């Protein structure tokens, strides 16, 4: 009964059934409940809008801009977060000195910086990338920092007893130990990067899915708003999936990675 393979198969069937129900409810639900199409456009209308936007509104171009910003923000933010995480993890004094400011910056809602960055850098892609960097930075940095801090001191002593240098201890012990928590941070970061970019695009500019979103809102074009939301979800989903795939490759040595495909 509780054979894992049966569980996976039953789970997949249930999941697909839910999708069909959801799509059906989207298509016929608004009409049945008397909700006007400018409030909730049915599925077929959104699909038509998608084709229209693809042909006449440069949907692919705007998606490409958003993807580029998400990628740039995510990669730079993760690198910066990891770098600072390792540095602070290895220097308790630096962490002590900087922790109140890091905490303050972490509490401050990062998306609130978007208007400021646009004032500084104009209606370019840079303020959007910067918001994404800032928002991705924290989960990665905090996870790396905690991981470096929590390395088993006996492991470090073992390496030291073999006369390991500081560099060897980092590359052979601390860096690999930090991989699982770092990937947990990257997962969070990959979805947050999309949030950062969209907020930046909503605030100002004439490119990207966030722009399309606010354009649709201005035109009271509800289907276009829906199309933008679907595309943004897709972008975030692919980014998340990319991290998961990389994680499976890197952390292949961890037990029971394959069982329970839970995300």
């Amino acid at each position, binding site marked *: 009964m509780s054979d894992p393979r049966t569980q996976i198969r039953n789970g997949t069937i249930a999941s697909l059934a839910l999708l069909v129900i959801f799509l059906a409810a989207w298509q016929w639900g608004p009409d049945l409940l008397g909700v006007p199409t400018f409030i909730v456009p049915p599925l077929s209308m959104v699909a038509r809008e998608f084709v229209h936007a693809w042909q006449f509104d440069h949907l692919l171009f705007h998606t490409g801009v958003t993807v580029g910003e998400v990628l740039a923000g995510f990669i730079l933010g993760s690198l910066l977060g990891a770098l600072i995480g390792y540095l602070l993890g290895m220097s308790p004094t630096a962490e002590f000195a900087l922790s109140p400011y890091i905490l303050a910056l972490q509490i401050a809602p990062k998306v609130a910086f978007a208007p400021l960055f646009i004032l500084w850098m104009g209606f370019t892609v840079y303020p959007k990338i910067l918001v994404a960097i800032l928002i991705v930075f924290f989960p990665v940095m905090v996870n790396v920092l905690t991981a470096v801090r929590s390395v*088993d001191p006996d492991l470090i002593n073992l390496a030291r*007893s073999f006369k*390991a240098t500081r560099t060897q201890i980092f590359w052979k012990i601390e860096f690999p130990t930090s991989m699982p928590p770092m990937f947990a941070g990257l997962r969070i970061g990959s979805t947050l990067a999309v949030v950062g970019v969209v907020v930046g695009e909503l605030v100002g500019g004439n490119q990207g899915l966030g722009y399309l979103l606010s354009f649709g809102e201005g035109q009271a074009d509800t289907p276009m708003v829906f199309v933008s939301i679907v595309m943004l979800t897709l972008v975030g989903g692919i980014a998340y999936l990319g991290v998961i795939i990389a994680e499976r490759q890197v952390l292949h040595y961890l037990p029971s990675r394959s069982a329970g495909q839970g995300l």
Partner: protein
Amino acid sequence: MALARVTRLEYRDVTMRFADRTGHGALTAIRNVSFSVRDGEVVALIGPSGCGKSTLLNIGSGLTAPSEGQAFVDGERVAGPNAQVAFMLQKDLLLPWRTILENVMFGVEIQGVPLAERKRRAERFLASFNLAEFSGHYPHHLSGGMRQRAALARTLAVDPHVLLLDEPFSAVDAQTRMVLQRDLARTLKQSGKTALLITHDLAEAVTLSDRVLVMSHRPGTVIDEIVIDLPHRDDPIARRHEPKVNDYVARLMDRLDIGHTGIEAPGGAA
């Protein structure tokens, strides 16, 4: 009984103080500990919890400097980690991202031994501990006993003169422990390595060593030395059948005041 064998490990008047939790006074963990271990000798160190046994091990391996006194390995003062000494703990400390072979090579890799030689040494020890077929596996695939044997192989692969063993088998079940004790005893005898074995298990101390040192409560110091005059140091299972083992254990219990004050139970069920 002065043997003509060279002294491998020596502690001379070693005292160790730590700052206590409040940060004011100092807490003396060990006081005026002096003893030496000759080449090829296995010495067990027993004593109540917190008497500073592990501190002695850290001092011997050069990870911690003593507050007073000195430790010597091969006649040279221990000033930091050195290639003559290797230690092994209760925890196997295998790296989960390395295969068993890569784990066994860890020490020699850090010491800069060329890859071919590293592999040769690691494979030799894996074979002698019956782990050859698991060399490509990751640690989580192996049982606790196998992991501990891999840890021992890693310790021996650096070819140290002195092994410092801190309760190496206290985390495995009783049957596995006996097998591991036999493997260790055999290896120590065959390779002629010198070892200092910290243990809570009195029977382990008696069956594996040439000599047992008893330490007092904190501040720990050596209060007794018992020479184990029994055959089969390379086979603890055979040694267990010697009737005198029980006399030695009883004497150690007496010296540790077991039955009067409560010392913590030996790790795991015996």
